[in-house]
């Protein structure tokens, strides 16, 4: 058991972080907020060239030939940068929809829960989106439609969503800590006060617990591990963003601060692929199955 990213995996993560840092920094994020519903197609093609979408496609089919653990690390970085667009749908379409792997074709998809992200902005829509109803999306960076639920959720979609949540949770914790160090009240940094300090500590505890769960699920691919990873990552992202907002005080409640963007995106992802309830039910069934298995062993 060597449960740490390998040197190659770390290098991959650093590479994606550098690319996103260069091409999608804070200025780009705010610019995207100012032109909602429009994707940066040049960036999309750059992601394609870097292998973002073709990552798990076999080399024989023109892909990178890597696995779920690598995809989780890459999606974590996307979540950390709050990168907008139907990343997951396009990634899952690589090898099946022409141009998706290269980032030439932007793909949206109807997911199991009946949510469609970027329906109007995509070139290709997978699944039956007939009768889709637009929502006035809470997240300025994710246009949304709903259709009636369409069946079972894809475990890979759940896992990579959890990886994105993990990245967003990490970003929320970083922003909270940064602010707690810099912002002074009563003549000292607010991070010196235990009330603030403990909010930040709890945020990190949730991030690290979610990280272990997400990475493990990426390695085992087990549906119960994946369901657990989703619940932990959803919690880390949503509560992390809320606590980050609290640490920022009044500034955190403004449009200018990025905190709301983190929280809103985290909320959108909690509704993907059947939502948390479906994962809780799966994990409840898993408890009984495990008990029955052990009982069978004893007999």
């Amino acid at each position, binding site marked *: *058991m*060597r*449960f*740490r*990213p*390998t040197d190659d*995996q770390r290098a991959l993560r650093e590479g994606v972080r550098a690319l996103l840092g260069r091409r999608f920094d804070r200025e780009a994020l705010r610019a995207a907020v100012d032109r909602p519903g429009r994707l940066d197609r040049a960036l999309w093609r750059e992601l394609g060239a870097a292998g973002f979408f073709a990552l798990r496609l076999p080399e024989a089919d023109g892909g990178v030939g890597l696995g779920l*653990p690598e995809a989780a690390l890459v999606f974590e970085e996307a979540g950390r940068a709050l990168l907008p667009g139907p990343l997951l749908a396009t990634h899952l379409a690589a090898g099946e929809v022409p141009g998706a792997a290269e980032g030439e074709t932007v793909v949206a998809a109807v997911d199991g829960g009946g949510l469609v992200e970027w329906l109007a902005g995509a070139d290709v829509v997978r699944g039956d989106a007939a009768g889709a109803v637009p929502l006035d999306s809470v997240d300025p960076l994710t246009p949304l439609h709903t259709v009636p639920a369409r069946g079972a959720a894809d475990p890979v979609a759940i896992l990579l969503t959890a990886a994105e949540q993990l990245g967003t949770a990490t970003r929320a*914790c970083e922003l909270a*800590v940064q602010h*707690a*160090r810099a912002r002074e009240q009563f003549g*000292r*940094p607010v*991070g*010196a*006060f*235990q009330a*603030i*300090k*403990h909010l*930040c*500590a*709890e945020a*990190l*505890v949730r991030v*690290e*617990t*979610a*990280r*272990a*769960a997400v*990475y*493990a699920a*990426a*390695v*085992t691919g087990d549906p*119960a*591990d994946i*369901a*657990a*990873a989703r*619940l*932990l990552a959803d919690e880390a992202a949503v509560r992390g963003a809320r606590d980050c907002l609290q640490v920022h005080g009044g500034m955190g409640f403004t449009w200018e601060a990025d905190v709301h963007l983190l929280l809103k995106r985290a909320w959108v992802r909690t509704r993907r692929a059947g939502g948390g*309830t479906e*994962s*809780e*039910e*799966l*994990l*409840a069934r*898993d*408890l*009984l199955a*495990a*008990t029955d298995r*052990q009982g069978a062993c004893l007999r």
Partner: protein
Amino acid sequence: MDLSDSPEDAEFRARLREWLAKTLPALPPKPSPDDWPGRRAYDLGWQRTLYDAGYADVHWQASPGVRLIFLEETERAGAPYVGAGFVGLLHAGPTIAAEGTAEQRARWLPPVLRGEEVWCQGFSEPGAGSDLAALRTRAWRDGDHYVVSGSKIWTSHAEVADWCELLVRTDPRAPKHEGITWLAMRMDAPGVTVRPLRTLAGSTEFAEVFLDEVRVPVGNRVGAENDGWRVTMVTLSFERGTAFVGEVVACRRVLGELAARARRDGRWGDPALRRRLGRLNAEFRALWRLTQWNVSEAQAARGGVPGVGGSVFKLRYSQARQDLYDAAAEVLGDTALDLGHPWVRDRLSSLSYTIAAGTSQIQRDIVAERILGLPKGR
């Protein structure tokens, strides 16, 4: 990232499973929780059984894979808990192994491994709990002895312990984190008085220990004089980092039993209860993965000594354990008020988890200051 067993690990797991299946049915019945001498004999007997089979030193092995497999398989099979051996095996033992002299290792480690001696922990004092460095128990040098006077509190296993890992103040003029020394003290030495304390669970899990001019040989000092705080940090990192990992597997077993009981009682149709248990499944799966993660990180970065990541685990686990037994109470209904049910006792003892080994509030300070780099202050 790799969570699979290496060929050697897989062989170890298979051998251990076979041995457990053969050995566990022959164990004597467990003594009652209040029968301390009986518990001591039972726990040491189990350790001796492990020793004879070649498994005694598994907690001190270099390979994290083997150690986790041992904890996973013994708990899964329902083997006895480490019990009275906790401090010796998971706490004082690793500290002596890391910081002791060759002579000290030879004197103290084999009896722990053979299940012959029990250790207890003399850290906390009435005025030095969370603020451990405020401890006031004094030790003076008198020839080749330290003479120790003061008192300790919340000392688990004190009644049945042979040795105490004792923190004393050897330089009262030094700043409070300096001037502390780590000693091994015999519990039957003249001047040691143990007075049991009754816990909220009604049992006597721990005790007060009064020390009146107790003579401890200088040779029983681990580490240098006045360097005890550093040695203690090594001890605490073991306590927070890895000492609880077996319990996580045990909690997962209890959770499965909760689900089975809910189904038997016709409660499985209640979606709120199902979802609550499902969420706890996620929690304990994640805690197990966090354990594997911490052990891998410690192995890579510090040669096996756990880092402050242990505080992350301890914070999350102590809360999860309380949540687990609160859920158990919901499953039990009126039976949750009956002290005769083992889950009810476990629910009461789970209340100590957010306090013992550094309160959750102290752990949050540690995470905030040492991992996140936030400024000191209260």
